[in-house]
Protein backbone atom coordinates (compact mmCIF):
# COMPACT_ATOMS: atom_id res chain seq x y z
CA UNK A 1 0.00 0.00 0.00
CA UNK A 2 1.72 3.06 -1.12
CA UNK A 3 1.93 6.38 0.61
CA UNK A 4 1.11 9.86 -0.59
CA UNK A 5 3.74 12.44 0.26
CA UNK A 6 3.63 16.09 1.12
CA UNK A 7 6.75 18.19 0.69
CA UNK A 8 6.93 20.15 3.96
CA UNK A 9 8.54 23.38 2.85
CA UNK A 10 10.24 25.50 5.48
CA UNK A 11 10.35 29.26 5.86
CA UNK A 12 12.48 30.96 8.49
CA UNK A 13 13.02 27.61 10.21
CA UNK A 14 9.35 26.64 10.51
CA UNK A 15 7.00 24.48 8.46
CA UNK A 16 4.79 26.61 6.22
CA UNK A 17 1.08 26.59 6.88
CA UNK A 18 0.42 25.32 3.36
CA UNK A 19 1.37 21.85 4.66
CA UNK A 20 -2.03 21.68 6.36
CA UNK A 21 -3.70 22.62 3.07
CA UNK A 22 -1.89 19.87 1.18
CA UNK A 23 -2.85 17.38 3.87
CA UNK A 24 -6.52 17.43 2.84
CA UNK A 25 -5.71 16.61 -0.78
CA UNK A 26 -3.20 13.96 0.26
CA UNK A 27 -5.78 12.29 2.51
CA UNK A 28 -8.34 12.27 -0.27
CA UNK A 29 -5.88 10.50 -2.57
CA UNK A 30 -4.90 7.96 0.07
CA UNK A 31 -8.51 7.16 0.88
CA UNK A 32 -9.60 6.69 -2.70
CA UNK A 33 -6.59 4.59 -3.55
CA UNK A 34 -6.86 2.49 -0.44
CA UNK A 35 -3.29 3.54 0.26
CA UNK A 36 -1.39 3.32 3.48
CA UNK A 37 -1.01 6.84 4.82
CA UNK A 38 0.11 10.38 4.27
CA UNK A 39 3.76 11.09 4.97
CA UNK A 40 5.51 14.44 5.07
CA UNK A 41 9.02 14.89 3.72
CA UNK A 42 11.21 17.24 5.73
CA UNK A 43 14.53 18.31 4.25
CA UNK A 44 17.35 20.50 5.52
CA UNK A 45 20.01 20.59 8.20
CA UNK A 46 18.99 20.17 11.83
CA UNK A 47 15.31 19.99 10.93
CA UNK A 48 14.39 16.76 12.74
CA UNK A 49 12.69 18.59 15.59
CA UNK A 50 10.11 20.01 13.20
CA UNK A 51 8.61 16.53 12.80
CA UNK A 52 6.63 17.15 15.99
CA UNK A 53 5.03 20.20 14.44
CA UNK A 54 3.91 18.07 11.49
CA UNK A 55 2.51 15.55 13.95
CA UNK A 56 0.51 18.25 15.68
CA UNK A 57 -1.05 19.02 12.31
CA UNK A 58 -2.24 15.44 12.06
CA UNK A 59 0.48 13.92 9.90
CA UNK A 60 1.34 10.44 11.14
CA UNK A 61 4.61 9.75 9.34
CA UNK A 62 7.54 12.05 8.68
CA UNK A 63 10.48 11.21 6.43
CA UNK A 64 13.51 13.28 7.33
CA UNK A 65 16.52 14.04 5.15
CA UNK A 66 18.90 15.87 7.46
CA UNK A 67 22.36 16.68 6.19
CA UNK A 68 24.75 19.65 5.87
CA UNK A 69 24.54 19.38 2.07
CA UNK A 70 20.86 20.35 2.43
CA UNK A 71 21.49 23.41 4.61
CA UNK A 72 20.55 25.88 1.87
CA UNK A 73 17.86 24.95 -0.60
CA UNK A 74 19.54 24.13 -3.91
CA UNK A 75 17.76 22.47 -6.79
CA UNK A 76 20.02 19.55 -7.56
CA UNK A 77 20.91 18.20 -4.11
CA UNK A 78 17.29 18.42 -2.98
CA UNK A 79 15.95 16.84 -6.16
CA UNK A 80 18.55 14.07 -6.01
CA UNK A 81 17.69 13.10 -2.43
CA UNK A 82 13.98 13.25 -3.10
CA UNK A 83 14.28 11.25 -6.32
CA UNK A 84 16.23 8.52 -4.50
CA UNK A 85 13.55 8.43 -1.82
CA UNK A 86 10.72 8.18 -4.35
CA UNK A 87 12.49 5.38 -6.23
CA UNK A 88 13.08 3.42 -3.02
CA UNK A 89 9.71 3.91 -1.34
CA UNK A 90 7.40 4.37 -4.32
CA UNK A 91 4.76 6.82 -3.11
CA UNK A 92 1.90 7.08 -5.59
CA UNK A 93 1.86 10.89 -5.52
CA UNK A 94 3.93 13.75 -4.14
CA UNK A 95 2.26 17.08 -3.40
CA UNK A 96 4.11 20.39 -3.26
CA UNK A 97 3.15 23.95 -2.45
CA UNK A 98 3.18 25.99 -5.67
CA UNK A 99 5.78 28.28 -4.13
CA UNK A 100 8.98 29.32 -5.86
CA UNK A 101 10.86 26.52 -4.15
CA UNK A 102 8.10 23.96 -4.58
CA UNK A 103 7.87 24.65 -8.30
CA UNK A 104 11.62 24.56 -8.85
CA UNK A 105 12.10 21.35 -6.91
CA UNK A 106 9.10 19.51 -8.34
CA UNK A 107 10.15 20.31 -11.91
CA UNK A 108 13.65 18.95 -11.47
CA UNK A 109 12.22 15.90 -9.68
CA UNK A 110 9.80 15.34 -12.55
CA UNK A 111 12.79 15.28 -14.88
CA UNK A 112 14.65 12.78 -12.75
CA UNK A 113 11.66 10.45 -12.48
CA UNK A 114 10.17 11.15 -15.92
CA UNK A 115 7.01 11.72 -13.93
CA UNK A 116 4.17 14.05 -14.91
CA UNK A 117 3.92 17.33 -12.98
CA UNK A 118 0.94 19.67 -12.85
CA UNK A 119 1.93 23.07 -11.44
CA UNK A 120 -0.12 25.73 -9.68
CA UNK A 121 -3.25 23.61 -9.26
CA UNK A 122 -6.44 24.98 -7.75
CA UNK A 123 -8.48 21.80 -7.30
CA UNK A 124 -8.17 18.04 -7.08
CA UNK A 125 -10.98 16.71 -9.27
CA UNK A 126 -10.62 12.95 -9.58
CA UNK A 127 -8.50 10.21 -8.12
CA UNK A 128 -8.02 6.88 -9.85
CA UNK A 129 -5.63 4.04 -9.11
CA UNK A 130 -2.99 5.30 -11.50
CA UNK A 131 -4.10 8.79 -12.41
CA UNK A 132 -5.06 12.12 -10.92
CA UNK A 133 -7.18 14.82 -12.49
CA UNK A 134 -6.60 18.39 -11.36
CA UNK A 135 -7.56 21.90 -12.43
CA UNK A 136 -4.96 24.56 -13.08
CA UNK A 137 -5.02 28.06 -14.52
CA UNK A 138 -3.67 28.62 -18.02
CA UNK A 139 -3.41 31.74 -20.18
CA UNK A 140 -2.54 33.73 -17.05
CA UNK A 141 -5.77 32.78 -15.37
CA UNK A 142 -7.96 33.66 -18.35
CA UNK A 143 -8.81 29.97 -18.69
CA UNK A 144 -8.67 26.80 -16.63
CA UNK A 145 -7.38 23.47 -17.76
CA UNK A 146 -8.49 20.19 -16.31
CA UNK A 147 -5.50 17.91 -16.81
CA UNK A 148 -4.83 14.25 -16.12
CA UNK A 149 -1.56 12.86 -14.82
CA UNK A 150 -0.81 9.21 -15.41
CA UNK A 151 2.02 6.95 -14.43
CA UNK A 152 3.34 5.23 -11.32
CA UNK A 153 3.95 8.50 -9.47
CA UNK A 154 2.23 11.82 -10.05
CA UNK A 155 3.57 15.20 -8.94
CA UNK A 156 1.25 18.10 -8.23
CA UNK A 157 1.83 21.58 -6.84
CA UNK A 158 -1.14 23.37 -5.31
CA UNK A 159 -1.45 27.09 -4.92
CA UNK A 160 -1.48 28.33 -1.37
CA UNK A 161 -4.91 29.37 -0.02
CA UNK A 162 -7.02 27.38 -2.47
CA UNK A 163 -7.37 24.17 -0.47
CA UNK A 164 -9.01 24.39 2.93
CA UNK A 165 -6.49 23.63 5.70
CA UNK A 166 -7.30 20.49 7.68
CA UNK A 167 -6.37 20.11 11.28
CA UNK A 168 -6.16 16.45 12.07
CA UNK A 169 -6.05 15.18 15.61
CA UNK A 170 -2.50 15.81 16.73
CA UNK A 171 -0.29 12.76 17.02
CA UNK A 172 3.30 11.89 17.71
CA UNK A 173 4.53 11.03 14.26
CA UNK A 174 6.61 8.04 13.30
CA UNK A 175 9.89 9.46 12.06
CA UNK A 176 12.03 7.71 9.47
CA UNK A 177 15.34 8.79 8.04
CA UNK A 178 15.94 9.23 4.33
CA UNK A 179 19.43 8.48 3.02
CA UNK A 180 21.33 11.48 1.70
CA UNK A 181 23.79 10.58 -1.03
CA UNK A 182 24.58 13.59 -3.18
CA UNK A 183 27.44 13.45 -5.65
CA UNK A 184 29.86 16.12 -4.31
CA UNK A 185 30.65 17.24 -7.85
CA UNK A 186 26.97 17.87 -8.46
CA UNK A 187 26.54 19.61 -5.13
CA UNK A 188 29.45 21.94 -5.94
CA UNK A 189 27.88 23.20 -9.16
CA UNK A 190 25.71 25.73 -7.36
CA UNK A 191 26.96 27.62 -4.31
CA UNK A 192 24.76 30.00 -2.37
CA UNK A 193 26.68 33.24 -1.78
CA UNK A 194 24.25 35.56 -0.18
CA UNK A 195 20.60 35.94 0.71
CA UNK A 196 19.22 39.38 0.24
CA UNK A 197 16.64 39.06 2.98
CA UNK A 198 14.94 42.38 2.39
CA UNK A 199 11.67 40.63 2.95
CA UNK A 200 12.46 38.35 5.84
CA UNK A 201 9.33 37.70 7.83
CA UNK A 202 7.19 39.44 5.23
CA UNK A 203 4.23 37.67 3.72
CA UNK A 204 5.06 36.30 0.26
CA UNK A 205 2.71 37.64 -2.38
CA UNK A 206 1.75 34.31 -3.87
CA UNK A 207 1.02 32.86 -0.44
CA UNK A 208 -0.72 35.75 1.23
CA UNK A 209 -4.36 35.28 2.08
CA UNK A 210 -4.87 39.04 1.75
CA UNK A 211 -3.19 41.33 -0.77
CA UNK A 212 -3.32 45.12 -0.89
CA UNK A 213 -2.11 46.43 -4.20
CA UNK A 214 -1.47 49.80 -5.71
CA UNK A 215 -1.29 51.12 -9.25
CA UNK A 216 -0.57 54.32 -11.11
CA UNK A 217 -3.10 56.07 -8.91
CA UNK A 218 -0.60 55.87 -6.04
CA UNK A 219 1.32 58.72 -7.72
CA UNK A 220 4.74 57.88 -6.28
CA UNK A 221 6.76 55.35 -4.30
CA UNK A 222 6.44 57.22 -1.01
CA UNK A 223 2.66 56.80 -0.99
CA UNK A 224 2.93 53.03 -0.82
CA UNK A 225 3.51 53.58 2.90
CA UNK A 226 -0.29 53.97 3.09
CA UNK A 227 -0.72 50.48 1.68
CA UNK A 228 2.06 49.04 3.87
CA UNK A 229 0.22 50.32 6.89
CA UNK A 230 -3.11 48.82 5.85
CA UNK A 231 -1.29 45.60 5.00
CA UNK A 232 0.33 45.37 8.39
CA UNK A 233 -3.06 45.71 10.10
CA UNK A 234 -4.53 42.97 7.88
CA UNK A 235 -1.37 40.77 7.82
CA UNK A 236 -1.41 41.21 4.09
CA UNK A 237 1.23 41.38 1.38
CA UNK A 238 1.60 44.43 -0.86
CA UNK A 239 1.35 44.02 -4.61
CA UNK A 240 1.49 46.41 -7.55
CA UNK A 241 0.33 46.87 -11.12
CA UNK A 242 2.84 46.96 -13.91
CA UNK A 243 2.37 50.70 -14.22
CA UNK A 244 3.66 51.10 -10.65
CA UNK A 245 6.53 48.68 -11.23
CA UNK A 246 7.59 50.19 -14.54
CA UNK A 247 7.57 53.63 -12.95
CA UNK A 248 10.17 52.26 -10.53
CA UNK A 249 7.94 52.70 -7.50
CA UNK A 250 7.92 49.01 -6.54
CA UNK A 251 10.19 46.04 -7.05
CA UNK A 252 9.38 43.79 -10.02
CA UNK A 253 8.74 40.93 -7.58
CA UNK A 254 5.58 42.67 -6.40
CA UNK A 255 3.99 42.87 -9.87
CA UNK A 256 0.70 41.08 -10.23
CA UNK A 257 -0.58 40.12 -13.65
CA UNK A 258 0.20 38.44 -16.89
CA UNK A 259 3.91 39.23 -16.75
CA UNK A 260 4.02 39.24 -12.97
CA UNK A 261 2.63 36.93 -10.36
CA UNK A 262 -0.63 35.06 -10.50
CA UNK A 263 -2.21 35.22 -7.08
CA UNK A 264 -5.26 33.67 -5.48
CA UNK A 265 -5.80 35.28 -2.09
CA UNK A 266 -9.06 35.30 -0.16
CA UNK A 267 -9.13 39.06 -0.47
CA UNK A 268 -7.50 41.47 -2.87
CA UNK A 269 -7.79 45.23 -2.29
CA UNK A 270 -6.92 47.19 -5.44
CA UNK A 271 -6.10 50.85 -4.91
CA UNK A 272 -5.68 53.18 -7.88
CA UNK A 273 -5.68 50.29 -10.34
CA UNK A 274 -7.85 50.50 -13.44
CA UNK A 275 -8.26 46.75 -13.98
CA UNK A 276 -6.56 46.05 -17.32
CA UNK A 277 -6.94 42.62 -18.88
CA UNK A 278 -3.29 41.84 -18.11
CA UNK A 279 -3.63 42.86 -14.47
CA UNK A 280 -6.91 40.99 -13.98
CA UNK A 281 -5.34 37.87 -15.45
CA UNK A 282 -3.10 37.71 -12.40
CA UNK A 283 -5.63 38.48 -9.69
CA UNK A 284 -8.97 37.46 -11.15
CA UNK A 285 -9.16 34.30 -9.09
CA UNK A 286 -9.07 36.18 -5.79
CA UNK A 287 -12.08 35.07 -3.75
CA UNK A 288 -13.08 38.67 -3.01
CA UNK A 289 -11.98 41.82 -4.78
CA UNK A 290 -12.29 45.30 -3.34
CA UNK A 291 -11.68 48.28 -5.62
CA UNK A 292 -10.90 51.79 -4.50
CA UNK A 293 -10.79 54.12 -7.48
CA UNK A 294 -11.85 57.71 -8.12
CA UNK A 295 -13.17 56.92 -11.60
CA UNK A 296 -16.64 55.34 -11.40
CA UNK A 297 -16.16 53.97 -14.92
CA UNK A 298 -12.90 52.11 -14.15
CA UNK A 299 -13.18 48.52 -15.44
CA UNK A 300 -12.06 47.15 -12.08
CA UNK A 301 -15.55 47.94 -10.72
CA UNK A 302 -17.04 45.42 -13.15
CA UNK A 303 -15.29 42.60 -11.33
CA UNK A 304 -15.09 43.96 -7.79
CA UNK A 305 -17.27 42.46 -5.08
CA UNK A 306 -17.10 45.72 -3.16
CA UNK A 307 -16.30 49.04 -4.75
CA UNK A 308 -15.65 52.44 -3.25
CA UNK A 309 -15.62 55.35 -5.67
CA UNK A 310 -13.32 57.88 -4.10
CA UNK A 311 -9.87 59.29 -3.65
CA UNK A 312 -7.63 56.55 -2.32
CA UNK A 313 -5.64 59.12 -0.35
CA UNK A 314 -8.77 59.79 1.68
CA UNK A 315 -10.25 56.29 1.74
CA UNK A 316 -7.22 54.11 2.50
CA UNK A 317 -6.25 55.85 5.78
CA UNK A 318 -9.86 55.58 6.96
CA UNK A 319 -9.92 51.95 5.99
CA UNK A 320 -6.74 51.28 7.96
CA UNK A 321 -8.27 53.02 10.94
CA UNK A 322 -11.55 51.11 10.69
CA UNK A 323 -9.77 47.77 10.25
CA UNK A 324 -7.48 48.45 13.19
CA UNK A 325 -10.46 49.22 15.38
CA UNK A 326 -12.41 46.17 14.24
CA UNK A 327 -9.52 43.74 14.60
CA UNK A 328 -8.25 45.10 17.91
Amino acid at each position, binding site marked *: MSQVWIYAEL*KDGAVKKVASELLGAARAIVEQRGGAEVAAVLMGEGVGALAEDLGRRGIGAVLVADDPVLRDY*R*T*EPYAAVLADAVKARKPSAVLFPA*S*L*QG*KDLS*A*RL*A*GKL*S*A*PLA*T*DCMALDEVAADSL*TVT*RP*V*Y*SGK*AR*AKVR*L*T*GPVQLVSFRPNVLPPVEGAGTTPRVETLPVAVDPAVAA*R*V*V*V*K*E*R*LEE*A*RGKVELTEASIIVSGGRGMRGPENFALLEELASVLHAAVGASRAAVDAGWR*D*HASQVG*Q*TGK*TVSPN*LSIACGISGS*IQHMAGM*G*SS*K*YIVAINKDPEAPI*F*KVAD*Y*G*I*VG*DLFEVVP*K*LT*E*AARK*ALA
Partner: protein
Amino acid sequence: MNIVVCLKQVPDTETKIRVAPGGLDIVRDGVNYQVSPYDEFAIEEALRLREKFGGQVTLVTLGPQKAEDALRFGLSMGADRAIHVKDETLLGGDPLGAAAVLAAAVKDEAFDLVLTGKLAIDDYQEQVGALLAERLGLPSVSLVTKLEIAADGKRATVTHDVEGGREVVEVALPAVLTCQKGLNEPRYPSLPNIMKAKKKPIDVKDAAALGVDAAVVGPGGARLTLVELSTPPPRQAGKRIDGDPATAAATLVRLLREEAKVI
Protein backbone atom coordinates in the same frame (compact mmCIF):
# COMPACT_ATOMS: atom_id res chain seq x y z
CA MET B 1 30.35 32.70 -25.36
CA ASN B 2 27.81 30.62 -27.24
CA ILE B 3 24.29 30.84 -25.95
CA VAL B 4 21.17 28.87 -26.77
CA VAL B 5 17.81 30.53 -26.13
CA CYS B 6 14.61 28.47 -26.05
CA LEU B 7 11.56 30.41 -27.08
CA LYS B 8 7.91 29.65 -27.55
CA GLN B 9 5.33 31.39 -29.67
CA VAL B 10 2.15 32.14 -27.72
CA PRO B 11 -1.13 34.07 -28.19
CA ASP B 12 -0.41 37.70 -27.32
CA THR B 13 -1.37 39.10 -23.95
CA GLU B 14 -4.35 41.06 -25.34
CA THR B 15 -6.03 37.86 -26.53
CA LYS B 16 -9.54 37.28 -25.21
CA ILE B 17 -9.55 33.58 -24.49
CA ARG B 18 -12.56 31.58 -25.71
CA VAL B 19 -12.79 27.81 -25.61
CA ALA B 20 -13.28 26.04 -28.93
CA PRO B 21 -16.00 23.37 -29.31
CA GLY B 22 -14.67 20.10 -27.91
CA GLY B 23 -12.95 21.89 -25.05
CA LEU B 24 -9.44 20.93 -26.03
CA ASP B 25 -8.21 24.19 -27.52
CA ILE B 26 -8.93 27.89 -27.58
CA VAL B 27 -10.53 29.62 -30.54
CA ARG B 28 -7.55 30.43 -32.73
CA ASP B 29 -9.27 32.65 -35.33
CA GLY B 30 -8.02 36.19 -35.20
CA VAL B 31 -5.47 35.45 -32.49
CA ASN B 32 -2.20 37.35 -32.80
CA TYR B 33 0.96 35.62 -31.69
CA GLN B 34 4.10 36.84 -30.00
CA VAL B 35 7.23 35.48 -28.40
CA SER B 36 6.36 34.61 -24.80
CA PRO B 37 7.42 37.73 -22.82
CA TYR B 38 9.83 35.89 -20.51
CA ASP B 39 11.62 34.46 -23.53
CA GLU B 40 12.25 38.01 -24.69
CA PHE B 41 14.19 38.61 -21.49
CA ALA B 42 16.22 35.52 -22.36
CA ILE B 43 16.96 36.73 -25.89
CA GLU B 44 17.92 40.20 -24.69
CA GLU B 45 20.30 38.81 -22.06
CA ALA B 46 21.94 36.53 -24.61
CA LEU B 47 22.50 39.47 -26.96
CA ARG B 48 24.06 41.55 -24.19
CA LEU B 49 26.43 38.71 -23.30
CA ARG B 50 27.41 38.29 -26.92
CA GLU B 51 28.09 42.03 -27.18
CA LYS B 52 30.45 41.65 -24.21
CA PHE B 53 32.12 38.31 -24.89
CA GLY B 54 31.58 37.61 -28.58
CA GLY B 55 30.21 34.25 -29.74
CA GLN B 56 26.91 33.20 -31.16
CA VAL B 57 23.27 33.32 -30.09
CA THR B 58 21.17 30.40 -31.33
CA LEU B 59 17.38 30.34 -30.93
CA VAL B 60 15.46 27.09 -30.63
CA THR B 61 11.76 26.49 -30.81
CA LEU B 62 9.46 23.51 -31.04
CA GLY B 63 6.38 24.70 -32.86
CA PRO B 64 4.23 24.72 -35.96
CA GLN B 65 5.02 26.47 -39.24
CA LYS B 66 3.86 29.86 -37.98
CA ALA B 67 6.34 29.68 -35.07
CA GLU B 68 8.88 30.74 -37.68
CA ASP B 69 7.57 34.28 -37.10
CA ALA B 70 8.70 34.03 -33.48
CA LEU B 71 12.17 32.91 -34.59
CA ARG B 72 12.33 35.77 -37.13
CA PHE B 73 11.40 38.18 -34.35
CA GLY B 74 14.26 36.89 -32.22
CA LEU B 75 16.63 37.05 -35.18
CA SER B 76 15.57 40.63 -35.81
CA MET B 77 16.35 41.47 -32.19
CA GLY B 78 19.86 40.31 -33.14
CA ALA B 79 20.24 36.55 -32.67
CA ASP B 80 22.54 34.85 -35.20
CA ARG B 81 20.72 31.71 -36.21
CA ALA B 82 17.80 29.48 -35.26
CA ILE B 83 16.70 25.88 -35.05
CA HIS B 84 13.05 25.20 -35.78
CA VAL B 85 11.83 21.80 -34.68
CA LYS B 86 8.87 21.53 -37.00
CA ASP B 87 7.13 18.19 -37.02
CA GLU B 88 3.38 17.66 -36.64
CA THR B 89 3.97 14.39 -34.79
CA LEU B 90 5.85 16.22 -32.02
CA LEU B 91 3.22 18.91 -31.35
CA GLY B 92 0.75 18.62 -28.49
CA GLY B 93 2.97 16.56 -26.20
CA ASP B 94 3.59 17.30 -22.53
CA PRO B 95 6.42 19.30 -20.89
CA LEU B 96 8.53 16.15 -20.46
CA GLY B 97 8.22 15.55 -24.19
CA ALA B 98 8.99 19.17 -25.08
CA ALA B 99 12.09 19.11 -22.86
CA ALA B 100 13.29 15.87 -24.43
CA VAL B 101 12.86 17.33 -27.92
CA LEU B 102 14.62 20.57 -27.00
CA ALA B 103 17.45 18.60 -25.37
CA ALA B 104 17.88 16.56 -28.55
CA ALA B 105 17.92 19.75 -30.60
CA VAL B 106 20.65 21.45 -28.56
CA LYS B 107 22.80 18.62 -27.24
CA ASP B 108 25.23 18.68 -30.15
CA GLU B 109 25.52 22.45 -30.17
CA ALA B 110 28.61 23.95 -28.56
CA PHE B 111 27.12 26.20 -25.88
CA ASP B 112 28.16 27.75 -22.58
CA LEU B 113 24.69 28.73 -21.47
CA VAL B 114 21.07 27.84 -22.16
CA LEU B 115 18.48 30.50 -21.37
CA THR B 116 14.74 29.88 -21.15
CA GLY B 117 11.82 31.94 -19.94
CA LYS B 118 10.43 31.34 -16.46
CA LEU B 119 7.25 30.15 -18.10
CA ALA B 120 5.35 30.28 -21.35
CA ILE B 121 2.25 32.43 -20.89
CA ASP B 122 -0.09 30.04 -22.71
CA ASP B 123 0.16 26.76 -20.80
CA TYR B 124 1.80 28.27 -17.72
CA GLN B 125 3.70 25.05 -17.00
CA GLU B 126 6.78 26.66 -15.49
CA GLN B 127 8.78 23.48 -15.76
CA VAL B 128 10.41 23.10 -19.17
CA GLY B 129 13.57 24.96 -18.10
CA ALA B 130 14.27 22.63 -15.16
CA LEU B 131 13.28 19.54 -17.18
CA LEU B 132 15.65 20.56 -19.95
CA ALA B 133 18.49 21.06 -17.46
CA GLU B 134 17.88 17.55 -16.13
CA ARG B 135 17.83 16.08 -19.63
CA LEU B 136 21.11 17.84 -20.43
CA GLY B 137 22.63 16.88 -17.07
CA LEU B 138 23.29 20.53 -16.23
CA PRO B 139 22.74 22.68 -13.18
CA SER B 140 19.85 25.12 -13.33
CA VAL B 141 18.86 28.28 -11.56
CA SER B 142 15.27 29.53 -11.73
CA LEU B 143 13.91 33.08 -11.88
CA VAL B 144 17.12 34.91 -12.70
CA THR B 145 17.06 38.72 -12.41
CA LYS B 146 20.80 39.45 -12.72
CA LEU B 147 23.58 37.60 -14.45
CA GLU B 148 27.33 38.16 -14.43
CA ILE B 149 29.76 35.84 -16.18
CA ALA B 150 33.24 35.36 -14.70
CA ALA B 151 36.14 36.46 -16.91
CA ASP B 152 37.17 32.85 -17.55
CA GLY B 153 33.65 32.01 -18.75
CA LYS B 154 33.45 29.01 -16.41
CA ARG B 155 31.17 30.35 -13.72
CA ALA B 156 28.34 32.80 -13.43
CA THR B 157 27.15 34.86 -10.49
CA VAL B 158 23.40 34.92 -10.58
CA THR B 159 20.78 36.78 -8.58
CA HIS B 160 17.41 35.07 -8.55
CA ASP B 161 14.06 35.29 -6.80
CA VAL B 162 13.50 33.09 -3.78
CA GLU B 163 10.68 33.03 -1.25
CA GLY B 164 10.27 36.51 0.14
CA GLY B 165 13.42 37.94 -1.38
CA ARG B 166 16.43 37.33 -3.55
CA GLU B 167 19.51 35.19 -3.38
CA VAL B 168 22.92 35.34 -5.04
CA VAL B 169 24.39 32.03 -6.19
CA GLU B 170 27.43 31.01 -8.14
CA VAL B 171 26.79 28.40 -10.80
CA ALA B 172 29.22 26.37 -12.90
CA LEU B 173 28.78 26.69 -16.67
CA PRO B 174 27.34 25.37 -18.83
CA ALA B 175 24.04 25.80 -17.06
CA VAL B 176 20.37 26.39 -17.76
CA LEU B 177 18.90 29.62 -16.40
CA THR B 178 15.22 30.58 -16.46
CA CYS B 179 14.70 34.29 -16.98
CA GLN B 180 12.43 36.49 -14.86
CA LYS B 181 11.15 40.01 -15.26
CA GLY B 182 13.70 42.49 -13.93
CA LEU B 183 16.63 40.90 -15.77
CA ASN B 184 16.66 43.54 -18.51
CA GLU B 185 14.50 45.61 -20.85
CA PRO B 186 14.18 43.76 -24.16
CA ARG B 187 15.05 45.88 -27.19
CA TYR B 188 12.74 46.47 -30.13
CA PRO B 189 14.01 45.18 -33.46
CA SER B 190 15.25 48.02 -35.68
CA LEU B 191 14.17 48.20 -39.30
CA PRO B 192 17.63 47.32 -40.69
CA ASN B 193 17.76 44.35 -38.32
CA ILE B 194 14.31 43.20 -39.43
CA MET B 195 15.61 43.20 -43.00
CA LYS B 196 18.80 41.38 -42.04
CA ALA B 197 16.86 38.77 -40.08
CA LYS B 198 15.10 37.62 -43.24
CA LYS B 199 18.40 36.25 -44.50
CA LYS B 200 19.57 34.60 -41.29
CA PRO B 201 19.63 30.80 -41.35
CA ILE B 202 16.92 28.66 -39.75
CA ASP B 203 17.67 24.93 -39.54
CA VAL B 204 14.46 22.98 -39.76
CA LYS B 205 14.48 19.61 -38.01
CA ASP B 206 12.01 16.79 -37.56
CA ALA B 207 11.84 13.80 -35.22
CA ALA B 208 14.01 11.66 -37.47
CA ALA B 209 16.72 14.31 -37.74
CA LEU B 210 16.76 14.65 -33.95
CA GLY B 211 16.66 10.92 -33.34
CA VAL B 212 13.62 11.17 -31.06
CA ASP B 213 10.64 8.84 -31.06
CA ALA B 214 7.35 10.70 -31.48
CA ALA B 215 5.52 7.81 -29.80
CA VAL B 216 7.44 8.67 -26.62
CA VAL B 217 7.98 12.43 -26.73
CA GLY B 218 4.93 13.38 -28.81
CA PRO B 219 1.28 13.49 -27.71
CA GLY B 220 1.01 9.68 -27.64
CA GLY B 221 3.65 9.42 -24.94
CA ALA B 222 2.30 12.26 -22.83
CA ARG B 223 1.79 11.61 -19.13
CA LEU B 224 0.15 14.98 -18.63
CA THR B 225 -2.86 15.39 -20.88
CA LEU B 226 -5.56 18.00 -21.27
CA VAL B 227 -9.03 16.77 -20.37
CA GLU B 228 -10.97 19.97 -20.72
CA LEU B 229 -10.43 23.69 -21.06
CA SER B 230 -12.93 26.14 -19.62
CA THR B 231 -13.14 29.81 -18.85
CA PRO B 232 -13.74 30.83 -15.26
CA PRO B 233 -17.28 32.01 -14.52
CA PRO B 234 -17.32 35.74 -15.23
CA ARG B 235 -17.15 37.82 -12.10
CA GLN B 236 -20.19 39.95 -11.39
CA ALA B 237 -19.95 43.54 -10.34
CA GLY B 238 -20.82 43.58 -6.66
CA LYS B 239 -21.82 46.31 -4.25
CA ARG B 240 -20.98 49.98 -4.52
CA ILE B 241 -20.34 51.39 -1.10
CA ASP B 242 -21.40 54.98 -0.78
CA GLY B 243 -20.85 57.67 1.79
CA ASP B 244 -17.99 59.84 2.91
CA PRO B 245 -14.60 58.11 3.20
CA ALA B 246 -14.94 57.32 6.91
CA THR B 247 -18.45 55.87 6.55
CA ALA B 248 -17.57 53.91 3.42
CA ALA B 249 -14.46 52.48 5.08
CA ALA B 250 -16.42 51.42 8.15
CA THR B 251 -19.11 49.81 6.00
CA LEU B 252 -16.49 47.96 3.97
CA VAL B 253 -14.78 46.58 7.07
CA ARG B 254 -18.12 45.39 8.40
CA LEU B 255 -18.99 43.66 5.09
CA LEU B 256 -15.57 42.03 4.87
CA ARG B 257 -16.01 40.66 8.37
CA GLU B 258 -19.67 39.73 8.42
CA GLU B 259 -20.58 38.98 4.82
CA ALA B 260 -17.36 37.86 3.11
CA LYS B 261 -15.75 36.67 6.36
CA VAL B 262 -12.25 37.27 5.01
CA ILE B 263 -10.78 39.50 7.70
